[in-house]
């Protein structure tokens, strides 16, 4: 996967998480996965199709998701209800929106799907014939992994 695809997502995740959560966001070591991998509990997936195709997943534990929702809503949220799901979906929207602006500026043309939210335990993700780059972000409210699998359209 070309690195220019991932940088905009990492930068956007860093910017938006810093803006909406406050505090220091630490970027962990980037790693590559080409086989199936576990998903932590709450995963917001945005699909891309155009000059490039693939998907981006924002993956976190349910506790982290609830911490983030509580911060973004300025109130304690204990269950992943409709409002909490809308909050995580909106977070994914904001990050992909900013990343796509950057990629469009670089000349890539593609559309995005609205975020789909997956929740549950012991989920596993398998991408067929596309490797995924994962960037862990330590937010202070828990870890969010930005999982990007994009390739040139064949």
């Amino acid at each position, binding site marked *: 996967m070309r690195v220019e695809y991932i940088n905009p997502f990492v930068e956007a995740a860093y910017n*938006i998480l810093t*803006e*909406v959560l406050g505090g220091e966001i630490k970027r962990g070591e980037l790693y590559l996965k080409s086989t199936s991998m576990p998903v932590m509990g709450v995963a917001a997936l945005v699909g891309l199709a155009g000059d490039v195709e693939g998907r981006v997943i924002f993956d976190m534990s349910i506790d982290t998701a609830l911490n983030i929702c509580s911060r*973004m*809503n*300025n109130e304690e949220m204990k269950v992943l209800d*409709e*409002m909490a799901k*809308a*909050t995580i*979906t*909106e977070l994914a*929207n*904001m990050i*992909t*929106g*900013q*990343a*796509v*602006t950057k990629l*469009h500026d670089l000349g890539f043309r593609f559309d995005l799907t*609205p975020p789909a939210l997956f929740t549950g335990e012991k989920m596993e993700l398998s991408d067929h014939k596309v490797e995924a780059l994962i960037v862990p972000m330590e937010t202070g409210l828990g870890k969010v992994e930005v999982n990007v699998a994009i390739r040139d359209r064949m």
Partner: protein
Amino acid sequence: MISKQDFPAINERAPEGVRADGVAFKVLVVDDSMFVAKQIGQILTSEGYEVVATAGDGLDGVEKYKEMCPNVDLVTMDITMPKMDGITALEQIMAFDKNAKVVMISALGKEELVKKALLLGAKNYIVKPLDRKKVLERIASVLGK
């Protein structure tokens, strides 16, 4: 006992969402995200605005505007929504009421759509994530405050 009257009222100011005659500006919020609708509602009501209705898609937004006109002073309009997008809803509201005050709410990456909306008659736009100060400034400027 010290009462409020003992302090000079140097910090008092009228909330932005209320007219000189004490009546609140009425806002219709059109957004498919519960989270964003709630966020806009909280920001606006904290300054005295009245959110008279919310709509979860463009079609519902146009219907509610037509129903409530002229008792809506301002509409906040999301761009990407199911059933009818915010640009089409804006067009229909402007065709119904050329004096409608619509402010677009956009994620980054939709510059072309925002430009189109401004050409179609939207009065201003706000980019998410929503910043309280920015939201209030833009809305107050559209209402001529």
